[in-house]
């Protein structure tokens, strides 16, 4: 066929880069749930209502009590989340960034170690896997430690980081599906609404957080999945640059997970972003050639910044590189860091205008440097990591999706999996198309967007349509072996 690389290969790379981890996460959650649901696992829901795995009740025979209880649960939960998010904003505002960072690491430790451990245990029990407790401990310990290390560190390959993000999402999602059915549905809807308000309304905590972070040139200390362009299999793609997407946020604190959702991707502020970007660039780019810039900006951060960068370049970079190379030969050009950030400077100018095009809208083929802000800047430490990727023709930034979105998408699908597989497929399609709509919107309006509302709305609608209308119909026709 066409060897010259048609544009089919270059369009939609970023969308797929976000969709594939979400799909993987959902798929694994569904697998885990259908595997685990054969027995009842110890109920440890942090929400008051008893968790019940086998709760098969049709919504038609709802008691008002259930509805009330669910509403109450959701209200309390949302209230808690709001409070915690505001707390986070306050802490962040006063620059307790290290505290936040360690707290998040600690949460990751707890999630991976205890929740992940107990899920692992039940897998072992159900699967009758012969394993002794020493081996188990060693495996769990290694798994957990690597996960914690990968959360905010720059030296860890991005692939590991992404895998752990997905793993965290899976674990929390599996945990959440232990909530009773009504509570789950009401909670999902409530979270979607909350996400909408928190990200878009003026004064919404997430919006404040995002703006605060971008005004400081930092990224939020939060668990965010970053779809790095390099990582997704991209074949020659430089198709489009989607701005950063801010995705939803959510944090399940109930679970101790403080995933704060940070979803911010840049989007939210196109402007924010640009500032951030330019800021960084300024920092490293110009400065960097020789750090003077850095110095100017924050004196003390400097050394560290440097170090951080170096670390990244050193190892992180190599890997990234190799990844690219493996995937598409030209990875090399893309990742260069720092040293060549000079190009970055160029980008600054363009930055304001660059936007995503998607959907094939209009390409921007300007040669610009691609750059990406590397996540995790921890301000205090001053490790701002930034990487500039320069692409031959366009710049792409990674789309970032809050871990909370992973979790709640998966919760929806997992809940659907407890009913039937058909609802799972319908919900999966609905969520994925909602995500695609969100990404397209992101490209259009270029500021941080909540990723939950569209997907959750579609998912819930399709779930009930499938369950109430389609399933009886399909079962009716196909048990008569009628198909069309």
């Amino acid at each position: 066929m066409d060897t010259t690389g048609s544009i089919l290969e270059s369009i939609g790379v970023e969308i797929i880069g976000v969709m594939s981890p979400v799909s993987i996460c959902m798929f694994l959650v569904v697998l885990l749930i259908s595997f685990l649901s054969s027995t009842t696992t110890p109920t440890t829901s942090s929400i008051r209502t008893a968790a019940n795995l086998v709760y098969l009740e049709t919504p038609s025979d709802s008691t008002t009590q259930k509805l009330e209880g669910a509403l109450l649960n959701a209200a309390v939960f949302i209230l808690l989340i709001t409070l915690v998010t505001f707390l986070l904003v306050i802490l962040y505002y006063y620059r307790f960034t290290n505290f936040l960072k360690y707290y998040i690491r600690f949460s990751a430790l707890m999630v991976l170690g205890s929740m992940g451990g107990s899920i692992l245990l039940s897998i072992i029990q159900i699967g009758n896997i012969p394993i002794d407790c020493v081996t188990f401990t060693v495996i769990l310990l290694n798994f957990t430690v690597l996960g914690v290390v990968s959360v905010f560190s720059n030296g860890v390959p991005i692939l590991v980081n992404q895998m752990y993000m997905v793993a965290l999402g899976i674990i929390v999602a599996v945990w959440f599906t232990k909530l009773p059915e009504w509570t789950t549905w009401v909670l999902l809807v409530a979270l979607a609404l909350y996400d909408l308000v928190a990200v878009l309304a003026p004064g919404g905590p997430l919006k404040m957080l995002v703006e605060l972070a971008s005004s400081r040139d930092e990224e939020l200390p939060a668990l965010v999945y970053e779809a790095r362009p390099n990582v997704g299999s991209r074949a020659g793609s430089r198709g489009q640059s989607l701005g950063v997407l801010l995705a939803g946020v959510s944090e399940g604190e109930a679970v101790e997970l403080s995933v704060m959702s940070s979803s911010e991707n840049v989007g939210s502020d196109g402007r924010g972003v640009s500032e951030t970007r330019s800021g960084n660039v300024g920092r490293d780019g110009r400065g960097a050639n020789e750090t003077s810039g850095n110095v100017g900006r924050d004196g003390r951060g400097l050394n560290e910044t440097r170090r951080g960068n170096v670390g990244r370049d050193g190892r992180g970079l190599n890997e990234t590189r190799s990844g690219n190379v493996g995937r598409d030969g030209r990875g090399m050009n893309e990742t260069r860091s720092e040293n060549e950030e000079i190009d970055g400077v160029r980008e600054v100018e363009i930055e304001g205008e660059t936007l995503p095009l998607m959907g094939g809208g209009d390409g921007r083929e300007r040669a610009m440097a691609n750059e990406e802000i590397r996540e995790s800047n921890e301000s205090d430490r001053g490790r701002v990591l930034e990487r500039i990727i320069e692409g031959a023709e366009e710049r792409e930034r990674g789309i970032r999706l809050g871990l909370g979105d992973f979790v709640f998408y998966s919760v929806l699908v997992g809940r659907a999996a407890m009913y039937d597989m058909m609802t799972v497929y319908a919900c999966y399609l609905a969520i994925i198309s909602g995500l695609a709509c969100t990404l397209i919107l992101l490209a259009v309006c270029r500021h941080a967007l909540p990723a939950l509302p569209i997907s959750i709305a579609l998912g819930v609608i399709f779930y009930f349509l499938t369950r109430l209308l389609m399933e009886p119909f399909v079962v009716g026709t196909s048990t008569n072996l009628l198909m069309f």
Partner: protein
Amino acid sequence: MTVAAGIGYALVALGPSLSLFLALISKKPFLILTLLSSTLVWLMSLIVMSALSRAFLPLKTTVWWPYTILILTSVGFQEALRILFWKVYKKLEDILDAFADRVSKPRLFMTDKMQIALAGGLGHGVAHAVFFCLGLLTPAFGPATYYVEKCPKMPFFLVSAIIALAFATIHTFSMVIAFSGYEEGNKVDQCFAPVVHFIAGMLTLINLAFGGCTISIPLLYCVAIVTLVHCGKMAWRRLIENRSREGNLSNSQ
């Protein structure tokens, strides 16, 4: 053992689609998006049909005419959607071409267009197999199996997997045929897809008779093979034409 059986049924229904997906679609993100959106379109059509049939058609009865109406309306509806899909695709193609011009890449090749059609068709086929076969497969992973009373020879899951495979093939390739028919203004190809779809749907009506599945399945496969052969011939013809045109082009230069 039952897990193996369940996986086996799933692979019977979806194996060819899966390999098509892995070999062709998964390498091109745009095709994945096409596939997903076409799957979603099909799902929505199914939901609409089920809503309509729940409202107007009593399916509990043992008479066959409601089923005939059902299949007629469903096929009609889905064929209308196919035309809609084509119109949307046409717009998209213009956008893509404009985009390609901007990034100074080549415009869509003829094979690209056929791949998009294939991805769209595969979406329909996969959706069909998923909802009519895979969605019902969960019990197959447990102990025991299930036989439909009208078709006592084979387990229900196997029958539905086999039928789903035939339909997936028909959907996948008739989309390619239809798109090329629309593009070339070829009436025969344009009518081919609806007719084949309709015939295939009608053939499953035979399953309502006792033991009908032994008759309908071979017939269904004949239809699938006809579709496949027709699509193959058409693709071959277009490729040859395309190549000779390109050849002429380069010769003349």
